[in-house]
């Protein structure tokens, strides 16, 4: 037996084994098993942490020199451009769905609600992190204001950015995260009004989950009983189109 594995053999061997794994992952049952790990992680993390356990907060001197924007840098739709040109004076956040008193809020109205400020780490699914100081209105305040009906289970966030082919970005979280004290609708980053690249005029912060849950360019918040009927039914744009986990705590 030759002890020298040449690179070609190694490449072919690795390739063959990996191709085997790939083929395996195309079987529905294997795919289902792989995707079900999400349930384990959600259950394990929710069991380990208190319902209101806070994500780590940082000191001002720990803030990233530049907060990297990701995903859509500018929605660039005619509608969004018109809103931007007028400094978002005509922009309204619609809050509806399974609520007792639907609302429509202007940016000025949001500015007058109680705020929360938090210096937190934004963790991208790609692996990078940026620390920034966010200011915004706790989502809990708004949900308490509109009065959730008892059958509401999820909060859906609809966004202004069209991801191509009339598929607007959207995300969703359950009530545990919706009522978490650090879950805010942020209008300021590092003491400046939110820039377009970071989601102007308003974005979601869900600090215990990965970046793609933090929907930017918010237009509408909807309380729903199930995610099945919304978008592709998986609870978010990347969940529908790329197979990302809906629970992004890991």
């Amino acid at each position, binding site marked *: 037996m030759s002890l020298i594995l040449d690179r070609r053999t190694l490449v072919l061997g690795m390739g063959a084994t990996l191709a085997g794994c*790939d083929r395996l992952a195309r079987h529905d049952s294997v795919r289902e098993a792989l995707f079900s790990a999400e349930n384990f992680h959600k259950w394990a993390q929710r069991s380990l942490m208190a319902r209101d356990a806070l994500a780590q907060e940082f000191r001002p001197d720990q803030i990233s020199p530049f907060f990297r924007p990701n995903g859509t840098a500018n929605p660039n739709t005619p509608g969004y451009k018109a809103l931007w040109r007028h400094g978002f004076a005509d922009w309204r956040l619609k809050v509806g769905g399974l609520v007792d008193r639907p609302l429509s809020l202007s940016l000025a109205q949001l500015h007058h609600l109680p705020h929360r400020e938090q210096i937190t780490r934004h963790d991208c699914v*790609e692996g990078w992190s940026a620390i920034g100081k966010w200011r915004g209105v706790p989502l809990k305040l708004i949900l308490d204001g509109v009065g959730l009906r008892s059958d509401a289970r999820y909060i859906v966030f609809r966004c202004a950015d069209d991801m191509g082919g009339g598929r607007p970005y959207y995300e969703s979280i359950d009530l545990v995260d919706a009522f978490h004290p650090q879950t805010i609708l942020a209008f300021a980053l590092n003491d400046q009004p939110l820039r377009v690249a970071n989601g102007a005029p308003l974005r979601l912060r869900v600090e215990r989950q990965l970046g793609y849950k933090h929907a930017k360019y918010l237009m509408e918040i909807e309380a729903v009983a199930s995610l099945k009927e919304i978008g592709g039914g998986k609870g978010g744009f990347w969940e529908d189109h790329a197979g990302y986990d809906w629970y992004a705590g890991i």
Partner: protein
Amino acid sequence: MDSEPPESRLVLRHRLATRLWHWLNALLLYVLFTSGLGIFNAHPRLYWGHYGANFDTPWLTLERFGSWVTLPAHYSLAMSRHWHLAAAPIFAFALLIYMAWSVISRHLSRNLSFRREELAPRHLWEDICDHARLRFPTGETALRYNVLQKASYVGILFVVLPLLIFTGLSMSPGMNAAWPWLTELSGGRQSARSIHFIAAFTIVAFVLVHVLMVLLAGAANELRSMITGRYRLPEARS
């Protein structure tokens, strides 16, 4: 051949728990490493500290790993993550169970703990020389791990593998809320990612040396001992 010399008899070398864990681990580490490289490819830069993104200074920047070594064999962060996050808990709990078994069954104290005389500088030096000259032990001595083997097995089992698990958990924003001290211990999420990467390649280095040693010591005999448990004692050198 009239009668087999006593040294070449078959003995039970590895117990069932060790064999099961060994092969489960081989499979899981393969999946974890290749899917891990797929995840790494989403941002092939490493930083120290809490934060780190494109505008910050990395200590290591690499090209993306080729598709011959990533799972899946094309770029899919979502699928790499599914493989990685499905294999990781099985790997972690299997390690925990194996550690507990090692203590309870006295595998640890009998086979992996150092004896005082082994740690004498002279003995250590002899062991290193034996390794360097590829002089493998024979007879009854071949049934015991030598001091370098013990050091690497204990180091991998109780240091590097747990480090991989804990730095992996340190990168999770959910775990960060549950156990903030864990990420602090790693020195921040980006340090955790760097340590995770270094530990993964430490495992690869261990596996390469491990496989090389198995080949040199007699692949068939060593493989059989890890499959059926039976090992033929090598004859003493004349």
